[in-house]
């Protein structure tokens, strides 16, 4: 209640005052309306976090690290994250670059394919994978990494694609070629450095996905970090809640760091803001 009152009175006194000093064209902002929406959103998103924090207690946040099985579970998740990320980048980067340069008509198809894993239920994919995977793959947790590559595709592809578009790839590559650079030199010394931000955000999104994925890991019976969170401490739940919060905050900090870093860099190179996801934009340009 107390939080709403100042926002409301602030809106009352300054609907005009606020638009002008910002230098924004009048009519483009709806200040009161905007603050109400963000306030409601803030309440909905922050109260559960706070409730969880209170339930777990601040001390539990640190004590997660010392629990039995924490190390093994985290190490498995980290290994999976590394393998997944390496395969994802090795697979998606050349494909995206190639399609941008040589097969622009295929881009639309590629966007369609890479969005599929968002909507194909992981449970159903698990059924299929367990059905067809050869035995030697089923006996290793790295089968999970291979499938996570598929799950990470929507985010990784979009991050890389956004980076490629900000770059004006064609001009850059032609310039590099006309200065006598071969393909490999161009890729490694011209394209890659320019895609640092895009690759970084693709990496973080992939890592976040792997570190948080529960459905497949639990169905395949591997104790990754998210599965450990549940299996461990089923009685009090405090450690589980604390571990969940830890994971959430760490991911968030990473993403914040990347967008700050990325925006600063792209401002220098004259590109756009670092974005995490873009669907409509790509489809429009591919047209």
């Amino acid at each position, binding site marked *: 209640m107390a939080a709403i009152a100042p926002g409301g009175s602030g809106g009352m006194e300054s609907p005009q005052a606020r638009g002008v000093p910002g230098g924004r*064209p009048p009519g*483009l902002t709806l200040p009161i309306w*905007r603050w109400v*929406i*963000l306030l409601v*959103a803030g309440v*909905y*998103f922050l109260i*559960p976090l706070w*409730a*969880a924090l209170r339930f777990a207690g601040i001390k539990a946040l640190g004590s997660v690290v010392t629990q039995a099985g924490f190390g093994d579970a985290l190490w498995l998740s980290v290994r999976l994250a590394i393998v997944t990320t390496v395969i994802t980048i090795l697979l*998606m980067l050349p*494909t995206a670059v190639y*399609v941008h340069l*040589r*097969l622009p008509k*295929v881009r639309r198809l*590629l966007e*369609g394919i890479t*969005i*599929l*894993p*968002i*909507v194909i*239920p992981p*449970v*159903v*994919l698990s*059924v*299929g994978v*367990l*059905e*067809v995977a050869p035995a030697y793959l089923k006996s290793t947790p790295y089968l999970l990494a291979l499938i996570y590559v*598929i799950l990470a595709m929507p985010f990784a592809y979009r991050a890389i694609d956004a980076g490629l578009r900000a770059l004006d790839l064609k001009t850059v590559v032609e310039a590099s070629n006309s200065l006598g650079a071969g393909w490999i030199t161009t890729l490694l010394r011209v394209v890659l450095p320019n895609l640092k931000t895009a690759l970084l955000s693709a990496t973080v*999104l992939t890592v*976040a996905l792997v570190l948080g994925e*529960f*459905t497949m890991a639990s169905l395949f019976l591997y104790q990754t970090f998210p599965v450990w969170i*549940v299996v461990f401490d089923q009685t009090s*739940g405090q450690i589980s*809640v604390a571990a*969940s919060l830890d*994971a*959430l905050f760490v991911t*968030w900090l990473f*993403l*914040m760091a990347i967008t700050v870093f990325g*925006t600063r860099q792209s401002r220098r190179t004259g590109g756009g*803001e670092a*974005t*995490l*996801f*873009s*669907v*409509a*934009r790509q*489809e*429009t*340009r591919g*047209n």
Partner: protein
Amino acid sequence: MDQTVAASGAPGSLADPGASGSGPATQSRRAARLTGPGVLRWLRRVAGIVPFGVYVTLGLVIPMIAVAIGAFQKPNGGGFTMDNIKTATSGVYLHGFEQSIILSVVTAILPGIFGLLIAYAIFTARRGAILRRVAITASGVFANFGGVPLAFLFIATLGSSGLVTQWLSDLGFNPYDHGFNLYDLGGVAIVYMYFQIPLMVLVILPALEGLRPAWREAAENLGARTWQYWRYVGGPVLLPSFLGCVLLLFGSALAAYATAEALTSGAIPLTSIQIGSFLNGDVIPGQENVGKALGLGLVIIIAVAMVFYVMLQRRAAKWLR
């Protein structure tokens, strides 16, 4: 195939020399496209996307085909049968589909609208502003947040002894006395919005950025009021993208498994949970493949939604260039 096309093309151009004005150059180029070397060149062009294609085929297409085939097979490698489909579309499983669809529709439309409003609020903030940065990265995190941690969060908040539940009972309104239950469909819907709203923000922001300030200015110069701008310009331009994003949310809600499983310990009749229980070995003998039939059902529902999505995006693309 290529041979015959080339053969029929050649006499045509011989018989009609005047028609192909630019002469031998065009002719040889056309021949190159249609004959052996042309195919080779085409193969070389496509070679760059072969690894990706192979990976997707192995990791996505073949498993999904296996599910589809299994849906029509008797257990233990038996022959063709429709029994799985019949079981999957009756009784508790039919109920599961109904509940899943209701839940997905609700958690697509409400977060869709709310997410659009939030995205617009973020969008009108200055580029690079701290609010915008926090909101966008938070969306990235929360959209991927789900499963057990999310369930814990809400049990601590709206569970029978959760924080908000206690606040409300202190105010004399215990939601559990008024038909609320975190562990039924309504409760699950509230929890789903926690990742659905951020997902909406992420996918609709690019569409909002496609709204040109120039359109707004033009409308205002012509004397349009704010509501008129939205009614006649912004709304119609945004509508296809908005509906497309809502369909994406629908698919995402339908596919969600971990959150509902963790929250209700699998007690809620949703199709994805029912499939999961088949994988966990919770099976009546003779019904081993019903899980695949359920999976096929989910995929078909989502495929229908995706066809709509693609059609809508194509319409949206016309305006957002």
